[in-house]
């Protein structure tokens, strides 16, 4: 029973508050400045269970007086395009464009304007509403027809323009005067932009360097394109020594043109790798590298000190497979100094690792500094005394080099 009383009391309080303060409790947002005085009186615009209706708007705003007089009947000083625009609209369409509850700052229609809602005649004559918005440039002077040929009804940009519609003698600069860059390249160009540019966009642009006078220096036009590195600071103004006219890259550079005393590092400082191999190398890159490219590179291992271990320089290059994990630091046991491949190691050639001989490398090669040395006495079967007695029974006395007779790993061979 207590609960019922409590609920009824709460209901009465809520309804009472709603009726007393509808602007706070129900209002989805403040009305615009012009409607502020009717903020508490919701029924000025809303009809019960029918919402806001255009007929409520027209009870104050006379459609035929919009833009001419205000709601009090006083004449407006400044008349604008609103007059003709509103005359072309049906009287019951106010709500289609205008809304409220969007705050005091909003003054006009805040709903997205739908051109589909206006009459066909009015839609065909864009200028009747947008004549003030039309830019006063030459491009738009040409446009005498409907804006819709270039612009959509959603927004002015992006706009399409069919250059084919222009008269054949039309000068590009008549419309695009403001678009011409003020650099030297363009200052010497003529008024016919189409020599380099297409009609769909300024970029990409083509440029025929053959049209340039032979005395013209590259830098006259490409001044801003020169990189500020040492390589280019010592280069002359004639870019064509290294670069072609179709693009900066690829570029050729003739190292023969350099003075004989020029240090490679002077220009290639940033190109030197920070690995151990290069840290111990001198400034003369040409010892290993050619001038046409960093790779392939040659390296004379004879220049390396005899005490130097292969791994000191080639640490990162050691494969992590089983074969190499048990190999020592002396790569030259298998590899040459010319290249990693081909490598001189074919176990089948010396001794086949068949199913009876699947042992780790160190079982036979117990001297890791020299893999050429081996022993067969590393397993139980092949003890020195066993081998000696078996071979003596056969009358074989020279049996110290096992591989000489047992290359295939079998007893018979």
């Amino acid at each position, binding site marked *: 029973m207590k609960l019922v009383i*409590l609920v009824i009391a*709460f209901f009465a309080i809520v309804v009472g508050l*709603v009726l007393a303060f509808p602007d*706070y409790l129900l209002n989805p947002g403040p009305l615009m400045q012009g409607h502020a005085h009717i903020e508490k009186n*919701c029924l000025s615009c*809303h009809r*019960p269970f029918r919402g806001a*209706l255009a007929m409520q708007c027209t009870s104050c705003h006379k459609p035929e007086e919009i833009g001419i007089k205000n709601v009090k009947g006083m004449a407006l000083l400044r008349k604008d395009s609103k007059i003709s625009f509103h005359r072309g609209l049906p009287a019951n369409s106010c709500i289609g464009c205008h809304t409220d509850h969007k705050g005091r700052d909003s003054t006009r229609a805040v709903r997205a304007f739908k051109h589909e809602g206006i009459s066909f005649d009015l839609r065909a004559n864009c200028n009747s509403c947008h004549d003030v918005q039309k830019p006063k440039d030459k491009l738009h002077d040409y446009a005498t027809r409907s804006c819709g040929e270039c612009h959509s009804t959603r927004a002015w940009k992006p706009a399409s323009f069919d250059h084919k519609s222009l008269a054949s003698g039309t000068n590009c600069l008549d419309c695009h005067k403001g678009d011409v860059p003020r650099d030297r390249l363009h200052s010497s160009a003529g008024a016919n932009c189409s020599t380099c540019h297409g009609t769909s966009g300024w970029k990409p642009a083509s440029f025929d360097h053959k049209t340039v006078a032979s005395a013209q220096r590259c830098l006259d036009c490409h001044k801003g394109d020169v990189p500020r590195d040492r390589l280019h600071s010592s280069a002359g103004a004639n870019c064509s020594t290294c670069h072609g006219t179709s693009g900066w890259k690829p570029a050729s550079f003739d190292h023969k043109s350099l003075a004989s005393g020029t240090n490679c590092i002077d220009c290639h400082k940033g190109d030197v790798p920070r690995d151990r191999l290069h840290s111990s190398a001198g400034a003369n890159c040409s010892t290993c590298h050619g001038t046409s490219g960093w790779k392939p590179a040659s390296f004379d291992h004879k220049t390396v000190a005899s005490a130097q271990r292969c791994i000191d320089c080639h640490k990162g290059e050691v494969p992590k497979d089983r074969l190499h994990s048990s190999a020592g630091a002396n790569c030259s046991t298998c590899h040459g100094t010319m290249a990693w491949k081909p490598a001189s190691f074919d176990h089948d050639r010396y001794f086949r690792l068949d199913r009876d001989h699947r042992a780790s490398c160190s079982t036979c090669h117990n001297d890791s500094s020299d893999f050429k040395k081996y022993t067969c006495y590393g397993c139980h079967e092949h003890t020195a005394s066993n081998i000696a007695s078996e071979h003596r029974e056969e009358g074989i006395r020279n049996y110290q080099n096992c591989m000489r007779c047992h290359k295939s790993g079998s007893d018979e061979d």
Partner: protein
Amino acid sequence: MALDYLLHQLQIELAGRYLGVAGTIFFLLSFLYSARKKQIIPKGPLKRFLQLHCHAGWIATLLILVHSGIHFNAFLPWAATVLMMIVTASGHVGQHLVRRFRNEAKLKKQQLGILTPPDDALDRQLFWNAVTLKALNQWRMVHMPLVAFLIILTLVHVVSILFFSNRANWM
């Protein structure tokens, strides 16, 4: 909030209005549990109705939150949203108490050596004997008025929307 942002980005924020309707329907569904308890619905396992109550309540809360769209407009719908959150939180407290009751009932059954499968009548008997009952009764004294207040705020909100809105703008 992310979902509301997505609705605005896709320019289908009107869908938010219909989420309000869907949320209200889920809230109404959650009342089936009360109907079962008051024997308005005579048959059906109470456990399932309680599950429906909890799940429908959750879904309704989420839908209404997206519907409210974190827009600071009129006070009444905001008050309703805040109260809805309080009611949902209160529902969780209730859920916790019921879980405690179940554990206690299970323990008592074990102590009494009852190993038979769940029996509604026995469960009810144990329920009334449980220590949790007092706490659950006190909780109901808070939960039920809050639910009643929420119904009133929702009702006033729905009626005010129907009273002032233009149905043509709902499409």
